[in-house]
């Protein structure tokens, strides 16, 4: 039953992705009044997972390593931005704060899950 290991690995990957997303949101909020600044976002988590899976297969099939999940902030605005001022700035503070709330919620859930399963693992291994 290596599902437990997969669980901790999944938590760590997702948290890393969430951290990069949080710093991107922080950049957007800080640059809310910078002329010409376009709001950034990270690629969806599924895409990041796919990319990592491909690089893993490329090296050695069956070799279990974490091919350093690379998450970068890219200019992907899936939908129309809520506003674009005449100065070319496309940051919407409300949208950024909503995203930040979502990031926080997911991060809290992840760490909660990791803690619970860590507890269970320790309890089951105790003599």
């Amino acid at each position, binding site marked *: 039953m290596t599902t437990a290991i997969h669980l901790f690995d999944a938590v760590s990957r997702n*948290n*890393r992705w*969430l*951290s*990069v997303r*949080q*710093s991107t*949101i*922080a*950049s957007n*909020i*800080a*640059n*809310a*009044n*910078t*002329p*010409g*600044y376009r709001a*950034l976002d990270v690629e969806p988590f599924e895409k990041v997972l796919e990319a990592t899976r491909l690089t893993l297969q490329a090296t050695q099939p069956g070799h279990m390593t974490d091919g350093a999940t690379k998450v970068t902030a890219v200019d992907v605005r899936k939908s129309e931005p809520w506003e674009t001022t005449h100065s070319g700035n496309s940051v919407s*503070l409300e949208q*950024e*704060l909503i995203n*930040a*709330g979502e*990031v*926080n919620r997911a*991060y*809290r859930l992840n*760490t909660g899950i*990791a*803690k619970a399963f*860590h*507890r269970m693992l320790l309890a089951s291994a105790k003599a």
Partner: protein
Amino acid sequence: MHDPLSSALRIGASGLEAQSKRLRVVTENLANAQSTGKTPGADPYTRKVVTFENELDETIGANVVKVGGIERHRSPYRVEHNPGHPAADQNGFVKLPNVDIVSEVADMHEANRAYEANLQAIKQAREMIAMTIDMLRTGS
């Protein structure tokens, strides 16, 4: 690569600094909205504006914001006919600052809102760091 959550704190701090500089300039404008010159024909207080710049901080690999500079706004001064005023020129016109109180107050609210948003972002990044370290704590 540097820890993204620590970068978020640094970025948020730069946002706070920029917005509070902006707020300082706005309050200066408001305080001097009626400040004329002292001698006949002299220029009054000139409205100041801040310019923001996006800067890629290489050490943390993130976009911070910086105040590019505090400049004088180049819109024309308001003119009022007030012959008895010390700053009145030979035609009796006094130059008043090019400060529009309504737009300055609106700017102040905007700066406040942006400041709060930056504060919120910093708070959340700090909470996320605390949650991570909290995983080590024994018990629930």
